[in-house]
């Protein structure tokens, strides 16, 4: 065997999907944290992501954090709203239920707001990763 010959790569666990399907999985992962991995049969990853994102989101609400609304006047509010929106359906449900009013008089309220924004941004990171996994760029 020549030294330049390489061993064949191990076959992927599943067939990569089309770009449209990968985008759909990414959107599903955005709407429901962890769902994209579960649809790709990555059970442990999906469960860990779902638990992490949901726990951060619920802890943020429990700490009386603020869910930002659309506000074109303040740049920080806009960025906070984008971060919150990345939580997907949990954000929409919490807003419809009147949650996330925030409490300016407690320290934990400020922490809660950061938990809510951070969980959204982490969910966005996971959704992007789901797309890579679905396209076969990552095992």
């Amino acid at each position, binding site marked *: 065997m020549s030294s330049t010959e390489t061993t064949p790569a191990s076959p992927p666990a599943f067939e990569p999907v089309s770009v449209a399907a990968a985008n759909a999985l990414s959107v599903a992962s955005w709407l429901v944290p962890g769902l994209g991995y579960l649809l790709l049969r990555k059970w442990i990853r999906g469960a860990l992501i779902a638990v992490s994102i949901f726990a951060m989101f619920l802890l943020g609400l429990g700490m009386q954090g603020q869910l930002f609304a659309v506000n074109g006047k303040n740049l920080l509010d806009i960025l906070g709203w984008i971060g919150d929106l990345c939580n997907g359906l949990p954000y929409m449900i919490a807003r419809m*239920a009147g949650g996330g009013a925030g409490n300016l008089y407690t*320290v934990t309220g400020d922490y809660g707001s950061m938990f809510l924004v951070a969980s959204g941004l*982490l969910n966005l990171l996971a959704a992007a990763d789901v797309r890579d996994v679905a396209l076969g760029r990552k095992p």
Partner: protein
Amino acid sequence: MVAGLSLALLAPLAVVVMSQFTAVIVFALFASVVFAITLREEPRAQIRYGAFCFACFLIGTVIAGWILYFLQPH
């Protein structure tokens, strides 16, 4: 109906009170899990990277806390 159902789901959510350090630990734990899963490929590398991120969060917070302690006016 959706709003009512949502309210019923959120109603049992008690007010969570935790210390600043506990909040840091919880934040670091969940963020490290997501970082490890999304930024590393192999399970062993994911565990190593998650532990590294967790340690960085905690050590960075302690260092920042001491810096702020010495910067505050006495």
